[in-house]
């Protein structure tokens, strides 16, 4: 998933970001509300993790603006404020969940997993498209009994494809989804990554699911034959 993590304390931001990356998410970690505001205009995210107290624009305002823009991606609020009225304010601003500091990383990851289950393709702990199953915990892809594990970036790419099947995804969109903000991919990096993913998928006989659309980008198309 593409996660926007907004937290002003770098000592808190770093472990959360690393833990999320470890779990196979593409994380943009920023330290202030204004940057987050701008990023939300630029990119699409599957999950927002917002600290309440942020410099310039606070988390609650960010959340309200995000909801006002009609976005439905889940929002997880993290804060040192713990009274009931404050929790109500946070949830009413549009947050889906609420974690009070000190944050237990184990619980945090469980909450993220819980929010991730909102995807319509969600089945257990996997994303499934026809008979292709992407296991989100183990970063493996499985089809017809064969399975292969993916690198974190390959996994992110495939997850993005699987969340948007049969849809032409431009190079720009993929770049936004897979590469974290501020890390510019080399000119041929995406081509290389897609080639790598195809190679992995070959092991489960699904290499040809990824189509190259010349001049535009790529598309994940499950074969229409002998399907139920």
């Amino acid at each position, binding site marked *: 998933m593409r996660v926007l993590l907004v937290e002003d304390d770098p000592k*808190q931001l*770093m*472990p959360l970001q690393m*833990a999320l990356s470890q779990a196979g998410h593409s994380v943009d970690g920023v330290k202030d509300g204004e940057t987050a505001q701008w990023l939300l205009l630029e990119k699409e995210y599957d999950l927002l993790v917002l600290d309440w107290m942020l410099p310039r624009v606070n988390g609650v305002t960010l959340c309200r603006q995000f909801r006002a823009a009609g976005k439905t991606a889940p929002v997880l609020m993290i804060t*040192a404020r713990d*009274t009931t009225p404050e929790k109500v304010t946070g949830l009413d601003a549009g947050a889906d969940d609420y974690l*009070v500091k000190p*944050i237990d*990383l184990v619980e945090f990851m469980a909450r993220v997993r819980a929010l991730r289950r909102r995807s319509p393709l969600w089945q257990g702990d996997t994303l499934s498209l026809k008979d292709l199953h992407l296991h989100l915990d183990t970063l493996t892809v499985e089809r017809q009994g064969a399975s292969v594990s993916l690198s974190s970036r390959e996994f992110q790419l495939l997850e993005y494809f699987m969340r948007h099947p049969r849809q032409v995804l431009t190079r720009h969109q993929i770049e936004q989804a897979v590469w974290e903000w501020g890390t510019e991919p080399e000119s041929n990096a995406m081509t290389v990554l897609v080639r790598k993913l195809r190679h992995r998928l070959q092991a489960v006989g699904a290499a040809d699911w990824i189509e190259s659309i010349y001049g535009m980008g790529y598309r994940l198309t499950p074969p229409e034959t002998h399907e139920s």
Partner: protein
Amino acid sequence: MFNRSRRNLARWFTLSMGSILVLFAGVIYQIEVKDKLEALDRLLYDKTRVMAASVHYEVRQDQSQVDLNHVPLLGSGSHPLAEDLIYVRWYNAQGQLVRFFGASPPDQLNASFGYLTVQSTDPLLENEIWLRQATLPVEGRTGTLGYLQVATPLRETQQELQQLQMALTLTVPIALGLIALTGWVLSGFAMQPIRQAYQQLQRFTADASHELRSPISAILTNAQLGLLIAPNDSHYHHPLENIVDSAKSMGALVNNLLLLARHQGQLTPESLKLIDLNDLLKSLATQFATLAEQKTIDLTYEQPEQLIELWADPDLLRQAIENLLNNACKYTRAGGTIRVNLVPYPGWAVIQVIDTGIGIPEADLSYIFDRFYRVDTERSLESGGFGLGLAIAQQIVQAHSGSIHVTSVVGQGSMFQVELPLKLPS
């Protein structure tokens, strides 16, 4: 809490100032009584002297022949002195009655000399009247000629004193009221800096606890990240887990401190909800039954037949009972029992948590609700306590206008009793 101190202060102020006022009024009254009597006595003395001056006598063979014919009232003819005097009596030197005016006197002089307040029967109206009587010797050249006894009614003096008494009984309570009012206002002023200092301390505790959350959170998540990244490296595993545990326990401590700092004094009416106490205890008993079972402790809850509802903050009340149950589970050995009772009393609900645990020594009983007080430091540390659980429980119960008591016998167990008023605290 502040109101109680303020009431105490005002009460003591009123009591002390009131006593001084009452004492003062009493002394004033006594002085007035003495003054009036002295004035009266002077008057009597003057009159007696006038009378004594008109006693004529002749000395024959060293015997004085006393002639009382010229003495006003006793002698012939009326005299302006009569109006104030109830009676005048002349006794000879041997104390025998010789002549008198007014009510019939005893034949023998029986009163001692000097001034006396006596009760006598009014010869005309036949009711009891108070008199001031003076008995004075009249001296002649050869010695005492006899004794003059005169009396004047005390009515006027009494009336004046009664007026003073009346004035005092009216003004003293009013003054007492004013003193009480002043006491209340003054104690209000006196409480102000204390209240401020206390609130500042509360706010500081709350702020500090709040601010501590971020660094603790950073410690916890960083250590957990370390565990996540190096899950199989036993070298790092143990210290990292220690950091995680310590950070978690610091987090819990900070939460407890925040709880203590926030819920001081009475709760706001908005935070209160009408809750079914039976439901709350039932769910808590179920929650703790599992924990107790692991230690092979038998936890039972006896439900009352009637519905017991009260106004309370459900989260806080739950926390208070949780702390009691936690303690009970912590300090009861395997095979023991914990009983939870809910007993209805008129206007009150009583919750009892009775365990067959290790008990609390007598010397510790009065301190166990103090913050950071631990009966047995070693054991408490082992079980991860801060010594705040009971302080929190007590504060929550007091915030609901209730009270909490403990009875305990070492080796036999303890009983914590929480009494909560069913009425909405005003």
